[in-house]
């Protein structure tokens, strides 16, 4: 029972990072694949497609960066030896919360970025408008994983 806190902390870190990486991975792969397809069709605007792809992928990655923060904080936080079950439960809950919170936004932002890249390939002269709309859409889609980050930081530090 003495080691329960440590076991739960490491389990929680694994869940947070492992599940949190799924969404961002799928999203970034989807965006990259769409960029390859579009630049095969329109090789002349490959630099514009590359720019939108890279910046879109950087924003997709931020939800898995949140999962990484939570996992690192869990690994390097020293769990106290408590007999209470509340603190380990809160730690496990923080990992699950961040992992699944990052999963959905990764998929959603990947969808947005791939559509943005496709749109730029279809009408390259409208690139500034499409790019800005893509950024705003991704930022709004990201807000749910930010709520997950806030809740898991609260669970780690306040309970």
């Amino acid at each position, binding site marked *: 029972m003495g080691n329960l806190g440590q076991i739960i902390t490491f389990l929680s870190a694994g869940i947070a990072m492992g599940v949190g990486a799924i969404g961002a991975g799928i999203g970034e792969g989807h965006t990259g694949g769409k960029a390859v397809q579009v630049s095969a069709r329109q090789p002349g605007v490959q630099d514009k497609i590359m720019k939108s792809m890279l*910046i879109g992928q*950087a*924003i997709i990655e*931020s939800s898995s*960066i*949140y999962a*990484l*923060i939570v996992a*690192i*904080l869990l690994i*390097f*936080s*020293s769990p106290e030896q408590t007999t209470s079950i509340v603190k380990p439960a809160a730690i496990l809950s923080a990992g699950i919360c961040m992992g699944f919170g990052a999963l959905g936004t990764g998929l959603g932002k990947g969808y947005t970025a791939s559509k943005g890249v496709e749109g730029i390939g279809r009408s390259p002269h409208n690139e500034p*408008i499409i790019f*800005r709309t893509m*950024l*705003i859409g991704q*930022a*709004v889609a*990201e*807000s749910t994983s*930010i*709520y997950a*980050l*806030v809740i898991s930081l609260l669970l780690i530090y306040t309970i």
Partner: protein
Amino acid sequence: MHEVGSIDTTSFNIAGLDITFNHHTLIMTWIVIFVILIAFFLLKRKINKIPGRGQALLELIIDSFDGLVKESIGENHRKYLPFILTIFIFVLISNWIGIVPIIEEPTKDLNTPMGLGILVLFVTVYSGIRYNGFFGFIKEFFEPVWFLFPINIVGEIGKFLSLIFRLFGNIFGGSVIIWVAFTMFLKSWWTSWILLFLGPAVYGFFGLFIGAIQAFVFAILSMTYISITKN
């Protein structure tokens, strides 16, 4: 090891009130302000009809943001341009200054993004009331039916909460990752040479690239929120 992400604070006790200053963040913020002042003073020193290098850079920044703000905000966009541009440049230099040793990013502390976010919230509410009237601004919260009022309020607060925590989370995460990489590889002499290649890469990606993108996203989202309530 549990000191990850802690911030130095100084506490005073004046007349029974506990006042806490995050002195590290304050000093770094003043350093950022002086860096911006000196850099832009040097850049704008020689204004000619035929622009030199510094003037061309300034004109490039101002002109591109002028186009963005004009498309989004519409009438009176010149009144909002200095605000948006100031936020962008302050956040950009704050994120970039972390690559200098010893100096840390002011945006790593939650209070700096929180202050900027509250500033944007005030400007948003002010421009909503100024351009639509008080009742026109309040009426937006009762759309489409009146009992959705609490949900609209929560959604409005959530917008600004996500604006604040996006900047904080990315910069804080970057600094935590840099700290972990350096403490892991500096443990013994035969792994520390990896930092010769890994260190600049980590600083370049998390300091320069993510910092620039997050500064741009912060400025663009503030502009969009202002334009939603204004129009």
